[in-house]
């Protein structure tokens, strides 16, 4: 049975079908706190409610477009970790449990998004982890693998953040997207810690200066940390809500050091910029 399509068909003649069938806020409130089995069962309905356009938003990108964008990134991440974990001798034994946790989370994200999207979910695309030869040793050289993982996670955080406005007011979907966003940030922190433990000069958070927005040491990833096409600034941005936060007081006096200002705020990135950046990994 395809619940999603059924509801969509009914909706054509009865726009209020979802509210009639199941008052949204009672039936699917806080899906994220349910057991996964319950959540998956409830989700096709949760997703269908988005078509009600009942959230009073001015979003121009549909929720299904946002979720398929997220799914595309999760396909890439899950495939990357699945291939990495399957590559004998690649991952240091001491780090294996960390990557196993991340691998499991990313696969759960794919499962979750597919269940939310139902028949609207895009299929898994063809993936080239070398990014057309940019990272030829990604599955044989651990340093490269960790670096690519670092960039994937940081970019994932930017990508989910950039889509939040398109989900504004949607308790179910926005909360779920931000919940994945937070997990990607936890992963980013963990991988940055691992890179640091292998001698890379890097912190769990993205730092920078007035001239450097990419702190990973991976020049090929400059765009991942730079400004986006839609006007979203680079990770080195210090203007927040119209306020230059370096001019605010800190523990060091009446101003805040530039690096602290960079670190304290992660920056969003628009969909088009993210797709351009990850483009070489597909097809």
């Amino acid at each position, binding site marked *: 049975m395809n619940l999603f399509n059924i509801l969509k068909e009914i909706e054509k003649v009865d726009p209020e079908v979802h509210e009639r069938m199941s008052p949204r806020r009672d039936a699917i409130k806080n899906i994220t706190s349910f057991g996964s089995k319950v959540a998956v069962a409830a989700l096709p309905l949760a997703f269908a409610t988005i078509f009600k356009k009942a959230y009073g938003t001015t979003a121009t990108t549909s929720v299904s477009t946002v979720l398929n964008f997220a799914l595309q990134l999760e396909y890439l991440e899950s495939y990357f970790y699945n291939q990495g974990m399957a590559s004998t001798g690649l991952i240091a034994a001491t780090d294996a449990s*960390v990557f196993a946790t991340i691998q499991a989370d990313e696969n759960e994200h794919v499962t979750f998004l597919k269940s939310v999207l139902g028949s609207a979910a895009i299929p898994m695309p063809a993936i080239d982890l070398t990014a057309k030869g940019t990272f030829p040793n990604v599955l044989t050289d651990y340093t490269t693998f960790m670096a690519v993982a670092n960039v994937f996670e940081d970019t994932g955080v930017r990508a989910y953040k950039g889509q939040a406005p398109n989900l504004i007011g949607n308790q179910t979907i926005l909360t779920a997207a931000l*919940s994945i966003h937070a997990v990607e940030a936890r992963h980013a922190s963990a991988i940055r810690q691992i890179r640091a433990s292998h001698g890379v000069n890097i912190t769990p*958070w993205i730092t920078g200066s007035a001239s450097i927005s990419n702190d990973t040491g991976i020049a090929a990833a400059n765009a991942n940390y730079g400004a986006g096409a839609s006007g979203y600034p680079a990770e080195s941005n210090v203007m927040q809500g119209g306020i230059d*936060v370096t001019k605010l007081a800190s523990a060091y006096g009446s101003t805040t050091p530039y690096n602290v200002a960079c670190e*304290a705020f992660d920056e969003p990135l628009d969909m088009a910029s993210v797709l351009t950046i990850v483009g070489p990994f597909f097809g």
Partner: protein
Amino acid sequence: MKTEPQESAGGNKIARRSFLRYAGVGAASVGLLSTAACHKDHGIGPSGTDIGVGDIGILNYAYALEQLEAAFYTQVILSPYSGMSSTELSYLTSIRDHEILHRNFLKAAIGSTAMINLTTDFSSINFSSRASVLGAAKTFEDLGVMAYNGAAYLFKDPNYLILASKIVSVEARHAALIRDLINPGSFAGSDVVASNGLNNSLTIAQVLPMANTYLKIKVSASNFGYVAY
């Protein structure tokens, strides 16, 4: 507070700001209404405060949590626990700096309707004990992530939503680090990340009772279903 340049909405911006200003000023009167409704005196007073209404209320909620975190880490660095490694000192100093900036930024962004300076009560934390300090840090960071995520849908203004999301992922980076300092590999433990790979989230009414155990001035959110006493 100004809007992000790329998000500016022309004439709507002025209307929205006016509304928010009105909403912020209206916080006290709405609080009075709810006070009258349940016959108890829990308006804004010397031992309690309320986050207010609307987007400004949510920002004040975040501001309250950031005040708590900034005060905590300030004390951690003032009186380092015994055996704090140089790496830990560096990490905890950075986190202190981030939390102070979050606090000061939110105060500046909210402006005249920012909530009062809160007085903390850290009597339950032993600042000379690594386990006690990192345990409290874990509580604060995980709570912060769950609080931002649970309240985000309440925002009406996408600019505020974006600003909050810029902060929450940094809190998640902190949470992962603190958890790994306590127990390596627990950065996304099953107590905070559910089996579907989603970080747990909490409502305002769930978060504030926990936050209030570390505050002398209790924070209420009468318009969001929670009154501290």
